[in-house]
């Protein structure tokens, strides 16, 4: 029809991918966000880096992790012969004498694996460290992406195993917390500032562990019909409420576990004396 109103022909021959793919709206910048979108990933990266630096130093230090009655959560349970003897403490010499490195390394694998495969931490480090994506609607720098479909990231599916492993670890830390109701001479019925810190920590550790998405799934999420399982439905609802705060709990427990260790370090090095409450 000669009305001159026919749509124009199209055609752009540049090959590019992502937001610069030829079919998409021609906009040069990789993103047009005007807010401080980089703040969240930067803060996440900084926080995680700080913890990694601190925990690496402490895990390899192989010293100053016991100050009666407190044992650093990094070294509990202590599984080698080279551990400091802790009266009634978590000394199980499963690995015997051949292990010469810091015994922390033996046990930290489990909480590390649990947190590394945790759905929240995955988001945090994918965004913060790997910039995949750095923030929503901000183009990522990678040319190819396969997500968690291949090795090694497909191993993220092992989160369930680590959750199961995290349960006994949390139980042992609970035992350690009970032991803090002693004084430096192992007499029961006492408490110090450390007891409070350990208590807060163990509550946060449990809250973080139980608020895990795998836990939510196991207690009830995997069911199709809640009406037939009223108890599991209640549990699922409860875990769901905790789960909504999983990020908060992840950070709070990360900080509290580091503080616990730091507190023990300060006591063990004599920098500080544990103020006794009773």
């Amino acid at each position: 029809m000669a009305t001159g109103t026919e749509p124009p022909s199209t055609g752009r021959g540049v090959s590019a991918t992502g937001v610069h793919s030829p079919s998409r709206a021609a906009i040069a910048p990789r993103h047009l966000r005007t807010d401080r979108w980089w703040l969240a990933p930067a803060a996440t990266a900084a926080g995680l880096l700080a913890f990694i630096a601190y925990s690496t130093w402490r895990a390899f230090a192989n010293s100053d992790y016991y100050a009666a009655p407190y044992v650093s959560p990094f070294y509990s349970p202590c599984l080698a012969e080279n551990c400091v003897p802790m009266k009634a403490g978590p000394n199980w010499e499963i690995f015997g004498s051949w292990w010469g490195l810091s015994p922390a390394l033996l046990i930290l694998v489990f909480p590390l694996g649990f947190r590394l495969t945790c759905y929240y931490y995955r988001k945090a480090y994918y965004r913060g460290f790997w910039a995949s994506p750095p923030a929503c609607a901000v183009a990522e720098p990678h040319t190819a992406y396969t997500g968690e479909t291949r090795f090694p990231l497909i191993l993220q599916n092992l989160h369930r195993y680590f959750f199961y492993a995290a349960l006994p670890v949390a139980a042992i830390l609970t035992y350690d917390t009970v032991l803090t109701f002693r004084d430096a001479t192992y007499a029961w019925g006492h408490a110090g500032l450390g007891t409070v810190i350990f208590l807060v920590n163990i509550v946060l550790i449990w809250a973080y562990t139980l608020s895990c998405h795998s836990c939510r799934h196991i207690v009830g999420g995997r069911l199709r019909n809640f009406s037939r399982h009223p108890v599991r439905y209640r549990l699922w609802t409860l875990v769901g409420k905790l789960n909504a705060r999983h990020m908060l709990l992840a950070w709070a427990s990360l900080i509290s576990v580091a503080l616990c260790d730091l507190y023990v370090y300060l006591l063990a090095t004599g920098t500080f004396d544990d103020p006794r409450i009773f």
Partner: protein
Amino acid sequence: MAQVERQQWDVVVVGAGGAGLRAAIEARERGARTAVICKSLFGKAHTVMAEGGIAASMANANPHDSWQIHFRDTMRGGKFLNQWRMAELHAREAPDRVWELETWGALFDRTADGRISQRNFGGHEYPRLAHVGDRTGLELIRTLQQKTVSLQQEDFRATGEYESRLKIFQECTVTRVLKDEAGRVSGVFCYERETGRFFVLDAPAVVLATGGIGKSFKVTSNSWEYTGDGHALALLAGAPLVNMEFVQFHPTGMVWPPSVKGILVTESVRGDGGVLRNSDGKRFMFDYVPDVFKEKYAQTEEEGDRWYEDPDNNRRPPELLPRDEVARAINSEVKAGRGSPHGGVFLDVSTRMPAEVIKRRLPSMYHQFKELADVDITAEAMEVGPTCHYVMGGVAVDSDTAATVGVPGLFAAGEVAGGMHGSNRLGGNSLSDLLVFGRRAGLHAAEYATGAGRPAMSPAAVDAAVAEALAPFAAAEAPASEGPAENPYTLHQELQRTMHDLVGIIRRAGEMSEALERIAELRERARRAGVEGHRQFNPGWHLALDLRNMLLVSECVALAALERTESRGGHTREDHPSMDRAWRSVNLLCRAVDDGVVLERTRTDPIRPDLLALFEKEELVKYLAEEELYE
């Protein structure tokens, strides 16, 4: 003949809302190759805006409910002007249509024993509305959409082609229904909005399911699609519209901020306990219960409040009167100077329910006010006022088959069809209407198509349709002697103002005559509506084409409203304030002629005696003329 792409189908459905999709599903399941054409994307139809629920007498919430009572409520709500056979079919078939949705994956809210929960609504004697929070329309559309997809998956398995038997042409507009020389439907002429390309679908049966006409009014809850396309297509194809004067103004639309004025506040707010107050803090609805409803509604606030807990022993509060009554009451309060700051009245749930309950039962209302008006409905009252919501009038159809009058092969269902709701529609009866008559239209269209052969399309008609569609581009470049080109947006706004101010909720003879003059003038100017640019997704062009439809339909509304010298349901005359029994049996048919539209009076069929027997004699005398009563 102009070169336009042509495709052959058995049934073409215009519109992909509740009625259109239900019709398409039925036609396809009956073996007809079916095409659906919709102006928006698939799944965006205006049906998603329906909040309250689907009325169906499943008797899940109250075992006393039955289709007879639903029928009775519908007739009462429509002030006995309903095409009674439609009301009967609707009440009988609605439960099956709802249950069927469940088998397609719909998830309604549940009762304690696991059945579909039902809620109270204005004009319904028992809790009857199947619902999903306050997003029932979305659930309906999504379910029908997913059922459509599942049929396409079946076809894919059978033929290797998803769209071999059921295809959605999304973002396409139909501008003409085409006919053969014998006057039978032969197909539709369409354009694709995205590219502006024209195409023709040849089909012996066409189902109109285009919804309503609200975009002809300034304050409306309707979306841009509601330009009366199906009404106009029927008129232009030679089918009449019936009772177009009945336009429902929903009593509670948002009044502030201006950009969302008219957006709906669901009736469930009142069904769940919300009350209307004026600026003096008075629950004014108690002053507005009309005589015909006096025995059915609470006389005191205490009784009304008790009803929510104990509906068997108390009468319902007057906030739940049919929509026309509530809309008029709000209008009167505002006129008397007792309105809210932005010209509405207060609708309050914050003092009636705990915040948690409000958020759970009315989640989308909570968000709508929070996000659009910055009002927290759990802490303060909403401001609401009437908004143009629904047209009861529409294409005149056969009750059983949804076939239009006088155009073989043309069917209509849903809001575009008239008759079902009489002079006023009850809340919740719309979604059930879509399902019941959508299915019937699809069924009968498919049946008709098998026996109709392939009516020949007239090439001249296609040429004319092309010329008509391209006119706005020519108008922009027409010589100045023919007058300046008109901006379609301006014309649209003027039409909306005319209809709102002169043919709105309260009508007067003088104003409606003036409206008719203005519409005639606008029609003249619309011929010169010009647009710039090209045909690819050009909204100015689309609007210029829609103007034809809105003007035609508006003229029918104004003409019929001027003719009917009584007040009934969605038609209120200040100069004829009461209902006149003599008008009950009169239908006003509107037909297109060369230059505008003309009216014709017909009489309704007498109501079948067994249906009349469902009412008390005392009630019938209020509605029926003497001779009807003693026939």
